């Protein structure tokens, strides 16, 4: 019975949760009552994003110069609110002339991709097969 309840999440709610989870990491899982996962995902994404930005990592914008910049933008936009607050978190801006800035760029991109994985898990809960939903939930 518990398994059935776990798997019966409204797909519309899963979509809303996925959007919320993208904007604020962990919020989508919190909306579905998965507080443990919500806290862990927020902690992991926030840690990587804030440290990456404070190390003066680069944040890619949508007007990319080449394909790699565009790839970087897609990774970075996964950070949701941290992407939009990047200027406030690191007012000094990016400095990739030093190794730490380069590492910061990777940490910030990793945070974004990690958050996309969490969003995919939410979509799997809403739209996946019964077995996939059971595993994700």
């Amino acid at each position, binding site marked *: 019975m518990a398994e059935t309840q776990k798997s019966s999440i409204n797909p519309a709610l899963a979509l809303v949760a996925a959007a919320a989870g993208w904007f604020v990491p962990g919020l989508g899982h919190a909306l579905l009552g998965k507080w443990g996962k919500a806290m862990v995902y927020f902690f*992991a994404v926030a840690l990587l994003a804030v440290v990456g930005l404070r190390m003066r990592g680069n944040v890619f914008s949508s007007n990319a110069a080449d394909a790699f910049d565009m790839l970087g933008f897609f990774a970075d936009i996964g950070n949701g609110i941290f992407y939009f607050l990047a200027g406030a978190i690191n007012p000094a801006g990016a400095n990739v002339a030093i190794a*730490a800035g380069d590492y910061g760029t990777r940490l910030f991109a990793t945070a974004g991709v990690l958050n996309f994985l969490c969003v995919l898990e939410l979509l799997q809960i809403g739209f996946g097969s019964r077995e996939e939903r059971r595993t994700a939930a």
Partner: protein
Amino acid sequence: MIVTHFQSMVIFALAVSLAFAYLSKEKMDERVRYAVWAFLAFLVVAIGIGWLTYPFSR
């Protein structure tokens, strides 16, 4: 923020192994085992590759 290269690697390993454990495992004991294993694997592999490539750095 001044973070050494090793510290940034530890932060990376910690966050990624924790998130992967929760993404891929259902039970708490499995998650703990996976997170510890992945965290140590990240560190051991990175330090190992660092030592292996050290002779070519100069």
